[in-house]
């Protein structure tokens, strides 16, 4: 039923209104994140072949870039494509909705792009559309999250989750060599993801090689700063002393480091995961617990563009004897520590 609305005619109302407008104007200026030193990642690696060839149109479809790593994937792809005068990149709006991503890829197929690069929101769910593209004669480079069947891609390139855990475990094992009864804890990522299980499995397998090292606790965070802080705080309370920590993800590591700082603990060694810029910087400064991080490199998107271009121009990869591009490429999860951090600094993502 209609009832009169309270009009802003009172003095209080005017004051409030003015304050609101003022606050709005001030706030609008506060959304900027431009710090002036925004350098695109993966700029200084050598490109596959710099001599321009046949023009290639590459379609790129990825999930919504809602955290640092995925954002870096997009940037890497875009920047890499820009480097080639013979490459045109058709990039779709990222989406986490399977149906929407299928639609986007079908649009790219209809546009008759030469090669497709797809980082599916869900590998299994997007297998069919991968198959469709291949049948339409468009080679697909499947990025990271793998399709159900090799028929759905010409080439797969991605990270090695098991290898990440393995290398983190070996790094820690080596560092704790000679220390009897060494204790290790693990701060895992989102537990309902397959990749988290693989990382943990690799980590556990590596630690088996070091009988003096024992994993005493594991908690799963959610790849977010907030959850990293909360879970790490609990782990620190639960374990009054331990020698090493492996954190699956540098994003949640920001929170974990905050919790470590808040608890005033520095009597252990921490290894991160993924390869965020903030982690590289901390490793370089070497004044905290974070000594190394295991890569899950977003530069794979740049490599995927290289592969797509090579496929489009019917070339192989330089340095290999093969005429053809390999069917799959698993990237090495390198350990970045103080000794080699400068080399990787430019690939760090925010």
């Amino acid at each position: 039923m209609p009832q009169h609305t309270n009009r802003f005619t009172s003095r209080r109302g005017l004051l409030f209104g003015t304050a609101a407008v003022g606050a709005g104007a001030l706030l609008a200026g506060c959304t900027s994140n431009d710090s002036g030193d925004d350098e695109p990642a993966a700029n200084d690696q050598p490109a596959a072949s710099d001599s321009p060839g046949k023009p290639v149109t590459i379609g790129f479809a990825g999930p919504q870039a809602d955290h640092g790593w995925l954002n870096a994937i997009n940037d890497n792809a875009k920047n890499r494509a820009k480097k080639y005068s013979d490459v045109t990149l058709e990039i779709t709006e990222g989406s986490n909705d399977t149906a929407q991503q299928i639609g986007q890829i079908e649009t790219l197929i209809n546009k008759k792009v030469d090669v497709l690069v797809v980082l599916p929101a869900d590998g299994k769910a997007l297998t069919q559309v991968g198959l469709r593209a291949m049948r339409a004669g468009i080679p697909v480079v499947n990025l990271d999250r793998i399709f159900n069947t090799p028929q759905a891609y010409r080439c797969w390139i991605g990270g090695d989750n098991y290898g990440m855990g393995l290398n983190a475990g070996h790094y820690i094992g080596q560092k704790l060599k000679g220390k009897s009864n060494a204790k290790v804890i693990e701060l895992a990522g989102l537990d309902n993801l397959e990749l988290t299980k693989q990382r943990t499995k690799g980590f556990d397998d590596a630690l088996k090689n070091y009988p003096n090292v024992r994993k005493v606790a594991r908690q799963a965070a959610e790849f977010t700063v907030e959850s990293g802080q909360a879970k790490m705080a609990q782990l620190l309370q639960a374990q009054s002393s331990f020698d090493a920590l492996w954190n699956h993800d540098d994003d949640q590591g920001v929170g974990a480091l905050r919790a470590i700082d808040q608890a005033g603990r520095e009597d252990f060694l921490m290894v991160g995961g993924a390869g965020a810029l903030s982690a590289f910087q901390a490793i370089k400064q070497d004044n905290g617990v974070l000594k190394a991080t295991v890569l899950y490199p977003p530069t794979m998107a740049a490599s995927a563009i290289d592969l797509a271009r090579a496929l489009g121009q019917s070339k192989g990869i330089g340095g290999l004897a093969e005429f053809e591009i390999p069917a799959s490429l698993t990237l090495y999860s390198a350990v970045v520590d103080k000794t080699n951090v400068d080399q990787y600094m430019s690939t760090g993502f925010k």
Partner: protein
Amino acid sequence: MAPEPPLLSMSGITKSFPGVRALDGVDLDVQAGEVHCLLGQNGAGKSTLIKVLAGAHQPDTGRLRWRGEEVALRSPIAAMRLGIATIYQELDLVEHLSVAENVHLGHEPTTAGFVVRGKAARQSTAALLRRLGHPEIDPARLVGELPAAQQQIVSMARALSHDVRLIVMDEPSAALDPDEVDNLFRIVGDLTAEGVAVVYISHRLEEIRRIGDRVTVLKDGRAVAVGLPAKSTPTREVVALMTGRNVEYVFPERPTAPAQGEEPLLEVQGLTRQGEFEPLDLVIHPGEIVGLAGLVGSGRSEILETVYGARKPTAGHVSVNGRPLKPGSVRAAVRAGIGLAPEERKAQALLMLESVTRNVSVSSMSRFSRAGWIDRRAELGAARAATRELSLRPDNPSVPIRTLSGGNQQKAVLARWLLRGCRVLLLDEPTRGVDVGARAELYAVVRRLADEGLAVLLVSSEVPEVLGLADRVLVLREGRVVHRAPARELDEHRVLDLVMEGSPAT
């Protein structure tokens, strides 16, 4: 009478709700093949009794026998299994399902236990509808698209889709026109001829004479008469049993000198709401009670709510003490000193989870607060004073309002406006849901408030109430005032004639 036990017999059934004893030792027996009528005023316990019969309420004490064997109806399903079906007044159909789906809801014909055989359901529904004399209803149509009378038939078909021995019908004729009532009675006759028993609830005595065999009268949760012959018991006797007294209402005396000459307190000029009521002029002086008499749909509640600002008028205005109010604003009306005791007390006036105090103080919170901070002691004191002034029972404003009887809940609403210092009181059906005994007291309270200088506008569908309590009466018909007169110059027959008559000219 055959030595065979009655189909159903209930004895000593009691059922209490917080603050109310709804059933207080009720006995009832029903024979196969008879139409047993249940009579009683609002609140006498009829609905509670049929809910016990339907298995929807569990009685606190008492026994139920079905064909001589003691049974317990623990759920509506248990009642249905025995063969008891209930057709409620407010129809319990699912509007978005088809007729056939509604009829078979809960016992759909299936293949392999879960695949609904839609065609079989439609066929058996069509057969039931034919039996009920309504073959024109399409079993595939959505129930929501049917008129009310046909929905009633669907509800009945649903009852008959079970193997039914006893059907309870709660005021089935309320929504029907005369032709449909005839059809209903034919169906009832067919059913009883097949040996099915019918428990029939109605307010219309003439219907009970037409189809009833026996009558049980409920009053205040007790059966005051069990199994009277329906055709031969005199109406006078039945009414006396229902009301428990021969004189129906007791009203306070009117002041000897009616308030005149003073400035009017409430003035209504040309107030209109398109499609609801025509331009209305009305003046009430302090100390006066003015009554609006009319049937449901005559626009009386709409007028009250428009005066109160709860509905926005299309034209005209309302003034209190000579000052016009902002139209369509409840807050303006309340600020000017108007208070409303609405028709649906529970839905429109009361905060059922709260204490009496908070219900009384809700419109005057600023009086007990500084900077929004409530002085609870002052609030309690004021609420106590206001409820005492109206003799509200129990004399403890801290009890939850839901434990109060209807009459005392109504007093709490009046206390709210008393505390607010209101000058104009709008009463919409003030005695609905109030015991006959408590009514007299409520009438006295209203008269006393008027004597203290309030202007009262009263709406009631009970003509004697308007005539007995008001000083002046406006008779409404289809949104128009058809007659104005001092209450003394009118009697019930005259008002009823005016209300029902085709034209106001006669």
